[in-house]
């Protein structure tokens, strides 16, 4: 089975703040990580390989620094890493990103494509399903359990708000995964050593035969107009006194506000 796992290098989002005066990102020394959901996608890919045999290719699109994320994935056990990097990709929204990744995946060849449910920086959850549409293959989102996977059948559970759906399909197929799916393995020391020396394949717009009108900002239907800091609440009240007094005040306030 040819398995491709799409990963994204993201800032550790908890540490990204906005300067309210200049409306710009403050990112002093914000570390980058592999998007946490993508680590579960990679683990799923490795487990499928263990069951059916085959090869796991990990793919990312990003600046040259994204190589770090690919090496981490190799250390976990991926067979091959591909970095899609080109000036022409700059400014891609989800549409252009998915188009670019789909062209690369067609180039690599895949029976099962795995993505995290969403990336923690953009939180859109759109790139996975969009890749599937570009490749004209089915997709199933929010996989919480892979019941059965083989070259001609796939049975999975899709997490929904009120429970889960059991869905049947067959490769080629794209799956986006949630954290409940598995517990990712830690990279082994041997894996880390090998990953350090491994070759990272680089692909450009020309390599994947992409149409330049569909790349980067030019290929992106959406654009960011501006960014700003969320509004903070101002009507706060810290209650004083003994525990009893605080509760009395609180309950009175809540009764006044018709909350109780």
């Amino acid at each position, binding site marked *: 089975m040819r398995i491709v796992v799409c990963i994204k290098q993201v800032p550790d989002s908890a540490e990204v703040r906005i300067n309210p005066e200049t409306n710009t990102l403050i990112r002093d020394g914000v570390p980058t990580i592999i998007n946490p959901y993508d680590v579960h996608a990679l683990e799923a890919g490795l487990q499928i390989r263990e069951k059916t045999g085959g090869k796991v290719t990990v793919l990312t699109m990003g600046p040259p620094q994204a190589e770090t994320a690919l090496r981490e994935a190799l250390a976990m056990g991926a067979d091959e890493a591909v970095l899609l990097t080109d000036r022409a990709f700059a400014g891609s929204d989800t549409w252009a990103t998915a188009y670019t990744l789909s062209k690369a995946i067609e180039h690599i060849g895949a029976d099962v494509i795995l993505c995290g449910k969403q990336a923690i920086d953009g939180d859109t959850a759109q790139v996975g399903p969009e890749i599937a549409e570009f490749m004209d293959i089915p997709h199933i989102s929010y996989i919480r359990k892979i019941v059965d996977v083989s070259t001609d059948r796939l049975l999975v559970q899709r997490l929904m*708000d009120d429970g889960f759906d059991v869905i049947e399909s067959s490769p080629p197929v794209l799956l986006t995964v949630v954290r409940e799916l598995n517990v990712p393995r830690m990279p082994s020391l041997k894996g880390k050593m090998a990953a350090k020396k491994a070759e990272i394949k680089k692909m450009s717009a020309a390599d994947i035969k992409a149409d330049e009108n569909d790349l980067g900002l030019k290929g992106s*239907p959406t654009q960011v107009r501006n960014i700003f800091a969320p509004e903070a609440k101002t009507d706060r009240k810290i209650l004083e006194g003994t525990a009893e007094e605080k509760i009395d005040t609180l309950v009175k306030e809540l009764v006044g506000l018709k909350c109780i």
Partner: protein
Amino acid sequence: MYIKVNKDLCSGCEACLQSCPYDAIVMKDGKAEITELCQLCRACLSVCPEGAISEVKEAADLKETDQGKGVWVFAEQRDGKIAGVSLELLGAGKGLAEKLGTELAAVLFGGTADDAQELIRWGAEKVFHCNEPLLSTFNDEPYASLLSKLIVEQKPEIVLTGATPIGRSFFPRVAARLRAGLTADCTSLEIDNETKNLLQIRPAFGGNIMATIFCPHARPQMATVRPRVMKKGEYDASRKGEVVAVSAKGITSRTRVVETVKEIAETAINLQDANVIVAGGRGMGGDKGFQLLRELAEVLGASVAASRAAVDEGWIPYRHQVGQTGKTVGPKLYIACGISGAVQHLVGMQSSDIIIAINKNPEAPIFSVATFGIVGDVHEIVPLLTKKIKDLKG
């Protein structure tokens, strides 16, 4: 488009370096220079005290656009029940349609003739309804194919749906197919007075940052919208509208929904519909702490929720998790007990009307969003509060 530094104006102050989220600005010979790492995010434009950084438009940025006509709301149904967010979007969509001087229509797959009428009573002037069995249960491919087909035929200018598991899974396929712009999980929608573009406001970076997104050329403009941030429209039982029957002829699927399983025990409490939520975090200390919360929830008729820390500890199942990787809630009253208030939690609950924070650490960030804060031990405060409310209710 690209970003350019006017070297004559650049004073070499380096103010722009910090503003760049991608490290794409370097100093060369005392002047700022934009490198190939630039993602065109425009963050640097406003920081330059000399106004030396500007965006340069190219011919491709200035294409004419066929606007299309009409605001559409895809009304989601599961087991024949219309999602609350769909009704909220009919409320919001009406405002947008009025501003644009166009009509508001709903699209309904599955459901009954009465469900279609109900959408009209909630504000739709027209409903495109397909009641064929293939569409009765949500399945990505047929939903995406049929909606795409309808959009191509009718050319709406705006298409909205809820940012639910369903909307967020199949809308991207539609957008990809139609080369349409799609913005995920919006919390506010506006119409730009000048260009009539839809301005889509959404949180990014786990809610630390808000971004305004727009689609300058592509149509339709598509968005998924977070549940419980928009207000439902006015329900009018006498409102009349048109129902257009839609055929699913030629629509196929390569995935099959074998079974739909409800996890009732865990989901009887639907957090997103709750009016009052009692939530616990690491500070609750364990199962016993959560028992205190259940007692408080009982006297309040509230649902119990948790922060990720408590879920990770195994004190309560994932479905109760509120925050970036859990649910977004907006109850009338949210009582946060022993929750420090990491930003990932705050983004999931800060739109609650009234927030009470109980935490022993006066510096805990949860107090920054709290309407009322109590600094103290949850194990003392929570039972006291339960007792007090019990007494009050007699």
